[in-house]
């Protein structure tokens, strides 16, 4: 069954022959799912052919793994006297396992997994040490984080849910036979000599049947112990199911029965197996380099001739440590020898026959890594791809934890349609999730998320407002408090900047800034001065302990962790005296060997070159919706179009300056924090914490003063201080009533080729009175908008969608107040505005959680994430908890109700009570509900008064209802 007899045709490697185990694995739904998961996520937005699947890549990696093992067998010198080389051969059973590992190395990837997972930032506090901070805009655990993601465990072991697990279990029998057949007394299999007796003992004394368990266990071991650091623990704590209790209680996992796990791991673990699959210059790397380059249409070809020097080495061999051993620490060396040798794969740079170094190989390696950089530069970090990622992440953020799909539902393991869990399905599930009929009403933010996803579906991506490349950022954002070393300064600064911008702590501030920019560009606030004034007022309010937490959907500040692509995975090279990853070689002082210094100099120069490139690769982006690049609905309606474009360019430039000022605020604040707090743990804690409202207010204050400190003139000329590489004039475009000329810059195809709203406008007028369409038209006409053609159908429908709930009430109130005679200045009422809302009423305070005396009382939901509460929402919450007889509920919950009302801003409290009074008046006329106007409302007011006076003790138990029925 392990003969290569099944042919697969691949567009990169030609014919690939696989064995029956591999064929069966590919046939499982768990693997078939990978054919619907793309390798590069949104990259096909830019490179239309780069839509290859992880399935194809996995099969390619399996093929390359086989190739690599052939190279190792061919080039490793089996000379007993030269202990630098591993004196072993990879047995047939190991080959089967390693190929299987390569085939399944991506099995845990979910749709868009690289784009939606929580990335890790490093915040350095000196040259070597750092704290890890998880990115705030990531939404799911990393695909290979086994302490929180149970997918790999379930796929490999859960025979109920996973067919793949059944396949592995079935093949365990022939596989273990093959492994047991290895003659470990031969020196070429000496690395297995301790393993087989242990497995026999596991079978005979511990009721552990290798015929059923061995293959899945070894495979799981192979895929989870990636680095040597991880391999130090024979037993790891992993999560074994999606079920929340499983997540709280991690389970220990080790190879074989519990009693033998330590020994088995010691005897079995060999880094070279992991090296071949995914560490270093590996099957994974080689396949995706070749495949991605081809599918991206790059005219490059990778040269694999360096694989002729791909060998198995023994880094612990005395030859590599002659000096050390002869010197001071003989004992250490002796200890190392008693341990079983750990073999690794390496590129042999030292030419032992000739006694020289193959310098060309160093260049060869860097050329390979350069290609990797090129893929990132051209594809992964392309602004359109990053914009799509940012939009996607923001949509998930807007959906909130309750609405966004669970990690489990992204995969649906065990489901009949598990293999259908593709990217498209993921996107669709985000759209249809809003239809849960028993769930709460669709919130505003969910509607916004829906809007973003439907844009993504049509590749209508946001446009960049600001892009700051790392090389420019590194010069400007010099965080104090880091003990910067001169060589790696750039890396430290960019890593810090990335981590800080992407941290939960500062995102509160940045989200606030984005909200201000969004409302400014939409025209809800007229000038930059007004924006700052509104922001100041919003935060200065003492009552508002928690200022509005808004998540804007049209402005996104976005970045990703700084990466050094030559470090991960690191290519291991074998020199005369050492075996080490190439990036560590660059830090080593030159020895006294001839030629050594030249080699190290070359490595250092190459690393410096790479560093410079990577610095420019990292970028900080601000993306805005295409709608904000044209003058926008509101400005259009206010007839600002006459000089619209010029005015809007000014707005966009001011917005850029606002972004830069915000970044400066963060630099100042973080530097100050680092100066005060040298402790690394404090820094980590701070970044993952929530920013206190007072801090936020302080930062906004600083932001305002920094922005104002710049001369208007210099802001106009150079809004981003030369940091951004975007010219907003390139994107800005105008709208006019005759439609969009084809040469217009607008790329949002729905906006560019619209249908005039004249038709829907006329139809709306025919609707019954009170329908939102008709009310909207009436409102617009009252404001003096008489030409329907000024709007497109899509825009009209957007406005209709907005014309509900609080917005409709606001507009209706204005109509009543001004007796139907409004003007252009009232148009802004059609939009919810955080900044303007404050002008009317005090901002909301987060409601205090009050327990009602009911057994099944539901906690009052926080009115987030926009916190734009009004009585409407208050009543909604209230009515949702009124189960059964409303009058009795009111009677029982009077005090609790009063407490909730008291937790609202003062201006709103009496409005709330009045609203309740109106409703009680109305409903007391209904049948059988026990509503008593003259009883409930006075009691409620009384309770409210008591709380306000600080007399918090509840009044005496209410008397039982008198039994009078107002309805009958």
């Amino acid at each position, binding site marked *: 069954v392990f003969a290569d007899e099944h042919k697969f045709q691949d567009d990169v490697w030609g014919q690939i022959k696989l064995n029956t185990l591999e064929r069966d694995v590919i046939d499982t739904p768990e693997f078939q799912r990978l054919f619907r998961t793309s390798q590069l996520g949104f990259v096909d937005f830019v490179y239309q052919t780069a839509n290859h699947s992880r399935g194809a890549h996995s099969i390619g990696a399996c093929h390359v793994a086989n190739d690599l093992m052939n190279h190792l067998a061919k080039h490793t010198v089996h000379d007993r006297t030269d202990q630098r080389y591993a004196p072993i051969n990879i047995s047939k059973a190991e080959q089967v396992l390693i190929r299987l590992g390569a085939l399944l190395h991506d099995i845990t990837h979910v749709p868009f997994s690289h784009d939606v997972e929580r990335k890790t930032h490093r915040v350095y506090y000196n040259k070597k040490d750092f704290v890890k901070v998880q990115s705030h805009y990531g939404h799911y655990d990393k695909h290979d984080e086994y302490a929180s993601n149970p997918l790999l465990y379930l796929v490999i072991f859960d025979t109920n849910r996973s067919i793949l697990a059944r396949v592995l279990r079935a093949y365990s029998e022939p596989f273990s036979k093959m492994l047991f057949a290895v003659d470990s007394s031969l020196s070429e299999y000496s690395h297995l000599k301790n393993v087989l007796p242990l497995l026999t003992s596991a079978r005979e004394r511990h009721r552990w049947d290798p015929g059923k368990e061995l293959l899945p266990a070894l495979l799981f071991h192979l895929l989870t112990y990636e680095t040597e650091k991880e391999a130090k623990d024979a037993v790891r704590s992993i999560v074994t199911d999606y079920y929340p209790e499983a997540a709280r209680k991690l389970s220990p996992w080790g190879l074989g029965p519990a009693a033998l796990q330590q020994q088995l791991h010691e005897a079995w673990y060999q880094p070279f197996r992991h090296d071949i699959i995914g560490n270093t210059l590996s099957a994974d790397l080689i396949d995706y380099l070749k495949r991605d380059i081809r599918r991206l249409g790059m005219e490059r070809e990778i040269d694999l001739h360096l694989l002729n020097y791909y060998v198995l080495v023994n880094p612990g061999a005395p030859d590599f440590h002659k000096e050390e051993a002869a010197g001071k620490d003989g004992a250490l060396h002796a200890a190392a020898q008693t341990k079983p040798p750990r073999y690794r794969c390496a590129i042999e740079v030292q030419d032992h026959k000739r006694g020289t170094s193959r310098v060309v190989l160093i260049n060869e390696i860097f050329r390979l890594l350069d290609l990797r950089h090129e893929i990132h530069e051209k594809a992964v970090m392309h602004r359109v791809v990053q914009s799509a990622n940012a939009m996607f992440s923001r949509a998930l953020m807007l959906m909130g934890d309750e609405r966004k799909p669970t990690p489990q*539902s992204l995969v649906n393991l065990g489901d009949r349609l598990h293999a259908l869990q593709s990217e498209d399905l993921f996107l669709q599930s985000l759209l249809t999730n809003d239809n849960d009929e028993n769930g709460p*009403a669709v919130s505003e933010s969910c509607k916004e998320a829906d809007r973003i996803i439907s844009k993504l579906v049509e590749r209508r991506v946001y446009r960049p407002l600001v892009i700051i490349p790392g090389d420019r950022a590194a010069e400007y954002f010099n965080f104090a408090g880091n003990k910067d070393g001169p060589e790696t300064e750039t890396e430290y600064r960019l890593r810090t900047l990335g981590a800080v911008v992407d941290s939960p702590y500062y995102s509160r501030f940045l989200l606030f800034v984005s909200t201000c920019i969004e409302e400014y560009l939409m025209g809800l606030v007229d000038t930059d001065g007004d924006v700052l004034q509104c922001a100041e007022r919003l935060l200065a309010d003492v009552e508002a302990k928690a200022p509005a937490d808004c998540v804007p959907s049209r402005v996104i500040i976005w970045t990703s962790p700084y990466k050094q692509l030559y470090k991960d995975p690191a290519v291991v090279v074998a020199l005369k005296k050492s075996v080490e990853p190439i990036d560590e070689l660059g830090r080593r002082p030159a020895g006294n060997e001839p030629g050594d210094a030249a080699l190290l100099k070359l490595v250092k120069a190459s690393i410096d070159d790479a560093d410079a490139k990577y610095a420019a690769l990292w970028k900080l982006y601000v993306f805005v919706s295409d709608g904000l690049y044209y003058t926008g609905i509101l400005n259009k309606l206010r007839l600002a179009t006459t000089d619209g474009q010029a005015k809007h360019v000014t707005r966009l430039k001011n917005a850029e300056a606002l972004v830069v000022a915000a970044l400066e605020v963060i630099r100042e604040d973080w530097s100050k924090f680092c100066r005060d707090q040298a402790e690394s743990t404090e820094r980590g804690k701070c970044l993952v914490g929530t920013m206190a409202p007072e801090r936020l207010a302080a930062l906004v204050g600083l932001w305002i003063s920094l922005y104002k400190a710049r001369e208007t003139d210099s802001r106009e000329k150079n809004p981003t201080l030369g940091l951004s590489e975007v010219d907003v004039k390139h994107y800005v475009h105008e709208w006019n009533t005759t439609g969009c000329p084809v040469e217009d810059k607008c790329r949002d195809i729905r906006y560019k080729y619209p249908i005039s709203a004249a038709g829907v406008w006329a139809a709306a007028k025919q609707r019954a009175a009170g329908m939102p369409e008709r009310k909207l038209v009436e409102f617009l006409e009252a404001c003096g908008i008489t030409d329907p053609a000024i709007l497109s159908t899509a825009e009209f429908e957007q406005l209709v969608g907005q014309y509900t709930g609080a917005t409709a009430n606001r507009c209706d109130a204005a109509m009543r107040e001004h007796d139907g005679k409004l003007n252009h200045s009232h148009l802004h009422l059609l939009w919810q505005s955080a900044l303007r809302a404050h002008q009317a009423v005090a901002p909301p305070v987060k409601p205090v959680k009050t327990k009602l005396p009911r057994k099944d009382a539901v906690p009052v939901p926080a009115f987030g994430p926009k916190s734009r509460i009004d009585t409407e929402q208050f*009543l909604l919450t209230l009515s949702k908890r009124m189960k059964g007889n409303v009058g009795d509920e009111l009677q029982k919950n009077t005090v609790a109700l009063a407490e909730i009302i008291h937790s609202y801003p003062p201006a709103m409290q009496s409005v709330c009570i009045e609203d309740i009074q109106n409703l009680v008046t109305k409903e007391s006329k209904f049948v059988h509900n026990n509503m008593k106007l003259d009883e409930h409302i006075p009691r409620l007011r009384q309770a409210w008064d008591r709380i306000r006076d600080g007399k918090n003790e509840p009044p005496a138990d209410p008397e039982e209802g008198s039994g009078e029925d107002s309805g009958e």
Partner: protein
Amino acid sequence: VIAESEREGHAASTWQDVVIGMQRKSVPLFPQLRDRAWRIVSDWGAAISDDTLPPVHDLAVQYGVRAIRFERLLSTAAISRTADGFLVHLNNMGHGTEKPDGTMVDINADTVWSLPRQMRFSVAHEIAHAIFCTEAKNAGKASALSKNLPKLEKACNQLAGAMLLPKTHLVAKIGDQLFDAEVAKSFVGKYRVSAQVFIHRMRSPDLGESFSGSEGLLALLSRNGNDVQFEAVHTRGGSGSRWKKLAKDFKSASLRDLFLAGHLTDRLLTEPRIRELCDVVWHPAARQIIPCEITTQQVCTNPLKILVGIRVRGSPTVRPDSDLFASEKDEASDGGCGLVGGSQDSGIR
């Protein structure tokens, strides 16, 4: 006496309590009215053919309920008298009906069936109120209702369930598959009611004698963050089992109270559907195990809601060395791949 009965009514927080409460002595007129209302609804239900969805609107029109008005309300739904009958008021804020304030619609087959599930239930509930009002007025006993409001609410809920799921339909179509989650889910889908209403309906008094051959449990679980709650539970038979207690206190119950083997408990929430034979720990103290068939169906994914059906397939057996009790110990000493529950002895970390 009245105050006493009112207080009892307040305490009646579960449907079970109401059923018990019905048997208690109460103001004598109300039970008569309630029986009368039940008879009206069951006669109506028996008369309709079981190949159509129950025409609730017919019953409504019969009692003068002719229109629905959507508006801002404190309650979810309410009913008021008009000159010639009744008007149903539905809350238009966030209950799945985003209709402009004051929208009126006639009650007919289209409007009733196009409402979301929970609103349709509310309409049926209000129709039950109309029946009560009309009958009380006819009998000249209007005050009997106003003095028993809590009980009236519960009775209307039950009647609403009986309208949306008539007895004849249930008996004809479910047969002996009452505790099969798959059947329950398809039923819920076909009759467009929520799973919760379906389970509560199973507990109504008129079904007491039906399905007498079946023994088992049907429950609706929902997940709220890390918490798993029972939203409704119905059990039949199972004397001496722990389910009785579960059905009574389901609001404070946890998953463990289903008394399933550990691995099943863990899988319930992660697998979209399960159908397999299993053992239930019938009476832990007596070490009784009973063979059952478990079926589960996810009815909603976000938030996660699951229907669980457990059908008893035999009588309890005493198994002193049952696998269920031994399994935890075995796994701990054995290690291997059986991870669940086996962590305590391994001595790492």
